[in-house]
């Protein structure tokens, strides 16, 4: 589903070069639920932004669902992002003056679906997260957990191959966080690959695999559960 080979990301200012990622290698297979952990500044967010085609990388290769994204122009990257990826953010990132229906509609508009198909997909997605009855409501009228569910519905509406989640439970209380996590597991069980950045060790243990990043490199890959097969270590 996703493979990065010898990937690097360098932020340059006039005086300083910061290596956010270097010699970064990772492969995520179809249907996996992978969590990404690491201390602040380790490169988790840079990795997720590059994986989500929100940032370009400096060197190396990145294959997303069989497509080499290196050197792609903005239009092609945007199209790929729209067709293959779904995003869930810590801060929900709903557009406040759009109703839930219109929020979920946003990625579908860019996909070019007709009105009938958009309506069906929006209603299905909102039903899947238990908010079908509130589609005319606005984000401010919902709790944090509900807003995150809308964000999940928005991410799911376009039937993405890969769901990228950046601390999706970071702004939620324990009960709401558990609900969101259960929803993500359910989505994964239905075949969607999930890559989730988290600070929460408990959530990391619930995934099939945890990738730990330190100083811009993958520190270890741990496959857990009945399919535990491999533990790798990478030196800096």
């Amino acid at each position, binding site marked *: 589903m996703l493979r990065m080979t010898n990937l690097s990301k360098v932020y340059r200012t006039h005086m300083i070069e910061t290596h956010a990622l270097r010699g970064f290698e990772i492969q995520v297979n179809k249907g996996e639920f992978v969590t990404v952990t690491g201390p602040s500044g380790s490169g988790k967010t840079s990795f997720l932004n590059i994986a989500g085609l*929100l940032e370009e990388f400096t060197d190396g290769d990145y294959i997303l669902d069989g497509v080499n994204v290196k050197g792609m122009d903005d239009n092609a990257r*945007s199209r790929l*992002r*729209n067709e293959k990826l779904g995003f869930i953010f810590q801060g929900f*990132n709903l*557009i406040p*003056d759009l109703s839930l229906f219109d929020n979920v509609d946003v*990625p579908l*508009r860019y996909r070019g679906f007709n009105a009938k198909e958009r309506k069906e997909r929006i209603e299905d997605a909102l039903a899947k997260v238990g908010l079908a009855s509130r589609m005319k409501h606005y984000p401010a009228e919902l709790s944090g957990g509900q807003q995150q569910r809308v964000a999940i519905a928005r991410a799911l509406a*376009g039937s993405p191959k890969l769901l990228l989640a950046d601390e999706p439970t970071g702004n939620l209380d324990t009960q709401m966080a558990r609900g969101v996590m259960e929803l993500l597991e359910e989505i994964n069980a239905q075949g969607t690959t999930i890559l989730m950045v988290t600070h929460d060790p408990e959530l990391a243990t619930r995934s099939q695999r945890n990738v730990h990043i330190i100083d811009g490199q993958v520190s270890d890959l741990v496959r857990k559960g009945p399919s535990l097969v491999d533990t790798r270590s990478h030196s800096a």
Partner: protein
Amino acid sequence: MFSYYFKLGVRSLRRNPALTALMVLTLAVGVAASVSTLTILHIMSSNPIPQKSERLFAPVIDNGPLEGYNPADPDNRNSSNEQMSYIDTMNLLKNGYGERRTALYGIGAPIEPPRKDMGVISAQGIATTRDFFAMFDVPFLYGQAWSEAEDKAGADVAVLSSAMAEKLFGAANPVGQRVRIAQQDYQIVGVLNNYRPRPKFFRLVGGPGAFGQEEEVMLPLSTAIRHETPHNGSMSCSSNREAGWQGLLRSECTWLQFFFETKSASERGQLQSWLNNYADDQRKLGRLKRNAPNRLYDVMEWLEYRKVVGNDSRLAAWLAFGFLALCLVNTIGLLLAKFSVRASEVGIRRALGASRAEIFQQFLTETAVVGLAGGLLGLLLAFGALAIIGMQSKEMQVVAHMDLPMLALTFVLALLAAVLAGLIPTWRACKITPAIQLKSQ
């Protein structure tokens, strides 16, 4: 996607009502100022007879004296040259070149209404030839122009404006009725159907001006000459002339205006040659001592030559556009403020699959919606401004009114102004790095 962006644009108008109102008002004021002055300029400089303006020519023959004449002066303008003497007028009417020819002079004609309870009406008009009506495509409400025979014979016939006909005879068709004009009885043969060319190109010299009132009464030139109907307008005499009406007709005083109509614009060269030959013949007869070039002006050249659009009108238009530019700079600032608070939305949309080009289109459509709102308000303000300008004088009243092209121009200008103002803010919006915005939420 355009309808989606348009919907978002309309919705965004409500997002920051105060900021939006300020932007719309700024644009509207700038557009109204520009459109008001442009409207006046547009009417002033419009072609009053577009279907044949290139085939109608005003000739200028310099019959002034040698004294004070400087042939080296390229701008040898002398008001005495721009009208024509009766001698030249008659010569050109009888023997002139072209499809049609006409001459005219202004008359002030007191009219005695048939109803005795009405007092004498002071009317303005012209004495002209029958061809005037066909040459200038003059529309008739009732009747028609006087006949060629009446023209030649100097018959006592008249054509009235519709307003004058209504004043004298009410709503009834007055053709065939008699009316007393300048102490002579005339039979009415036609009533004009609101003939108000703007500018009034055929009376640019010595009359009420390019935007003066419509001609209320028209008499055959031969009749007016026969009745010695006094000339109402400017007259230039370079030397002493004999006293009396016949003295005026025999003099070199210039007081009539003349026009040629050719079959096509390409005949201009032939007409010029004919005019030069005529002038040479007159010189052999001892006239036209200056040996100055004989000039021909088509209608638009004539308006330009007579400076119908004054420098002050042009200056006002430039100032108004300068003001619009200032308004645009302000609008740019307001749009930058409006879009800067939308950075997170841009980040979200980019993450969800919008390309930079799509963000650019969306935000530019939003500025166009602001432009449309500004255009609507600008239109109202422009109507108000034109109404105020129209109150200044009768002439301004004629030019200060909006027509369909200017109405369309208001919206185009408002849209263009808004889109122009929106380019930089929109460009900045679409350059936003989505990752930073998404993390900072």
